[in-house]
């Protein structure tokens, strides 16, 4: 009897030891709960961190930022306005039903339908039609040649037509069904969302059996959760919190440059920055390296163009801005009266106020008269998007188009037709329009390089830095942060 028992115990021990040690759950602390889990509705980080694990998108970006197949296995530009996508076979939704080209067409039509009212409409409204061709392919038609189409399709999630139609908008949002590596399990309002691994996933589903995304609004608490071992991955922390993590062997700090570009907008219609010399002085006065390396310390990189290496259209040949406060002082001294015109620097709480204060200080040190105007976000948006006469003299902003294409950042901030832009230069407009509709990579790149050069020479606005994002993770979690701030659970692993 004892013999058998011994054997049994040994067997149990062997099984226990042999079973994969990495079979565990992951807990991610986000700053807020998702606004929606229907991928065609609200679009903000706390939502898409979660729902992009539930859904597959038409295409995706790999960890190096290259566009890679997901539901579309290949694509072919048939004409200037037509793109043909081959749809992956053998993909099933979490309820077991197959994902068909019909679902793809439905998803495109759903998000582009103005009556649906998706906040993401602006990213997809160039698509005018979607239809099935040859039974297994989908043809997308755009209003005109649209080079950023593939970059936008990275964000287009495929939803199951039958289920969405049956459940309706609200019920689908409350219990979404996708085809992704993780299936929705439970949403405790205000607390957390729980996902379970989809073992029937067509690709690698990742090492975690369950994933819990929690809403933890206070950054210090998120860091404490990580240190206490109750969270495996935390987002939205700053470099001060990062320092706390650095000395601890159980956790690690991860950083990646993003596609957000911080910049100081100038009002070209109002003194003092209607004067080119004073714009130059402002640029010379700002110590970009000091701000990124001394102040922010999260891996930000100074930029001299409205693009980053994460964007198509970034030009590596644009030289960095000079920092020369003495020269700036000379320029302002020559026009001291104009330079001392009171100027307001518009900002909102969401931006890092250390930067705003540093910029104010640096500008005032060389003879400007800048004061900070901090308002809540909607008011700030109103100010920076108003006509030049009502607009502030200066504004701080951080731009992201989530498309990694220079079009999404230069057009809104530099084209005269954009509400964000206080620049009105016909040549820039023409270049931006050309790049927007050309499918030729070289033509586009040249146009953007020229725009970057003009902006740099004339200081139409002051690019500052490429923002970085920090994550805290447990030391055995392998997670590679990307420029588009994605968080795919199936690309993570546990080190032994």
């Amino acid at each position: 009897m004892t013999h058998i028992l011994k054997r049994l115990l040994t067997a149990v021990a062997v099984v226990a030891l042999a079973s994969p040690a990495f079979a565990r759950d992951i807990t991610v602390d986000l700053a807020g709960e998702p606004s929606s889990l229907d991928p065609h509705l609200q679009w903000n980080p706390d939502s898409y961190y979660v729902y992009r694990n539930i859904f597959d998108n038409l295409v995706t970006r790999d960890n190096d930022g290259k566009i890679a197949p997901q539901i579309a296995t290949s694509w072919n530009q048939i004409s200037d306005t037509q793109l043909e996508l081959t749809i992956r076979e053998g993909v099933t939704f979490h309820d077991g039903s197959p994902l068909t080209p019909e679902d793809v067409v439905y998803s495109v039509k759903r998000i582009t339908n103005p009556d649906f009212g998706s906040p993401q409409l602006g990213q997809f409204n160039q698509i005018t039609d979607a239809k099935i061709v040859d039974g297994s392919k989908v043809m997308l038609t755009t209003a005109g040649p649209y080079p950023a189409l593939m970059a936008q399709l990275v964000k287009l999630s495929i939803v199951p037509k039958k289920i969405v139609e049956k459940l309706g908008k609200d019920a689908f949002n409350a219990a979404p069904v996708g085809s992704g590596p993780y299936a929705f399990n439970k949403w405790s309002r205000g607390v957390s969302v729980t996902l379970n691994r989809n073992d029937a996933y067509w690709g690698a589903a990742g090492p975690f059996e369950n994933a819990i995304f929690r809403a933890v609004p206070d950054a210090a608490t998120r860091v404490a959760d990580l240190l206490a071992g109750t969270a495996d991955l935390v987002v939205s922390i700053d470099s001060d919190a990062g320092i706390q993590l650095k000395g601890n062997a159980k956790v690690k700090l991860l950083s990646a440059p993003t596609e957000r570009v911080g910049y100081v907008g100038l009002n070209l219609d109002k003194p003092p920055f209607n004067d080119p010399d004073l714009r130059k002085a402002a640029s010379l006065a700002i110590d970009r390296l000091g701000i990124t390396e001394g102040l922010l310390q999260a891996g930000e990189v100074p930029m001299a163009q409205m693009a980053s290496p994460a964007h198509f259209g970034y030009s590596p040949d644009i030289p960095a801005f000079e920092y020369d406060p003495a020269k700036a002082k000379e320029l302002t001294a020559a026009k001291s009266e104009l330079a001392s015109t009171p100027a307001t620097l518009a900002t909102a709480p969401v931006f890092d106020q250390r930067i705003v204060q540093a910029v104010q200080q640096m500008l005032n040190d060389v003879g400007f008269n800048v004061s900070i105007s901090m308002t809540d976000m909607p008011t700030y948006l109103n100010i920076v998007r108003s006509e030049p006469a009502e607009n502030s003299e200066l504004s701080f902003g951080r731009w992201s188009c989530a498309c990694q294409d220079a079009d999404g950042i230069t057009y809104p901030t530099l084209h005269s037709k954009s509400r964000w832009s206080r620049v009105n230069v016909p040549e820039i407009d023409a270049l931006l329009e050309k790049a927007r509709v050309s499918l030729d990579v070289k033509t586009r790149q040249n146009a953007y390089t020229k725009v970057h050069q003009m902006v740099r020479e004339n200081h139409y606005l002051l690019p500052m830095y490429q923002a970085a994002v920090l994550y805290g993770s447990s030391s055995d979690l392998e997670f590679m942060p990307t420029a588009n701030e994605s968080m795919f659970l199936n690309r993570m692993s546990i080190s032994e």
Partner: protein
Amino acid sequence: MLRFLLNRGGQALIAAFGVVTLVFFIQRLSGDPTALLLPETATQADIDAMRVTLGLDRPLIVQYWAFLSDLLRFDLGRSFVQNADVWDIVSSRIPKTLQLAFGALVVALLIGLPMGLIMAITRGKHVSKFIMWIVLACQSMPTFWSGIMMILVFGVWLRWLPSSGTGTFAHLIMPSIALGLLSLATYARITRAAVLDELGKDYVRSARARGVRTGRLVRHHLLRNSMIPIISITALELSQLLAGAVIVETVFAWPGLGLLTVQSIAARDFVVVQTIVLMGAFVTIFANLAADILYSVVDPRVRLAGQS
């Protein structure tokens, strides 16, 4: 009595209506939520389209009318941000806030009362001074600091308690203490004052003269007689606790109404804010109404004053 009830009920309704109207207009004067819902790259056309979807393009008075008529049908509306029925969102938070307020009240009473009592009995001695020092510390520590310190000590270093979140009884302990500290100080001081007041009275002296022991004296005489001011501040403290939960809820990721309010205000989620304020107003107004009615039941002079 009926006339009194109708009178007070009418007043309550007018007050609720006033609060709702005020909140409706002030919120809408403070800015447009559309810009926050859309990506930065949104064009004016996108913004306009969203305004139509949300019904924000209509004249303010039309929106107000629609809001009032929906309200009469008990339809509180949908959250702009969360795409869900607002009552579902708000009602899921109510039990959490009540739990926390109750937990804090228990902490405040269980620790604050004995502290006050000991301070009064040992007045002038070192013990009393030491406890007073603790009470002052409780009163002056800001919640966001004491909360984070507790998380650090009990959540990160000792790992006795979960560092944040909700779900089990253990989750409730630290937030309750953090929120209860201030009330604890209030209770301790009020109790001390009330007991000291009683200590000087004749019945205490005669009891002592009869040789009643301190323990018995406290239990049977002092505590009971000192209870009156303590009970009356409890009602006040409870509403204080409900209001003061905002910071504690943020620090401990406690999904209560306070946290929801702050987040909804920041996101300009008008419908959610309206509902929470409406609820707060109703609770306050009807609690007062109930108190008034009770008062008139206890003291007939109030009712008679209404009739004359």
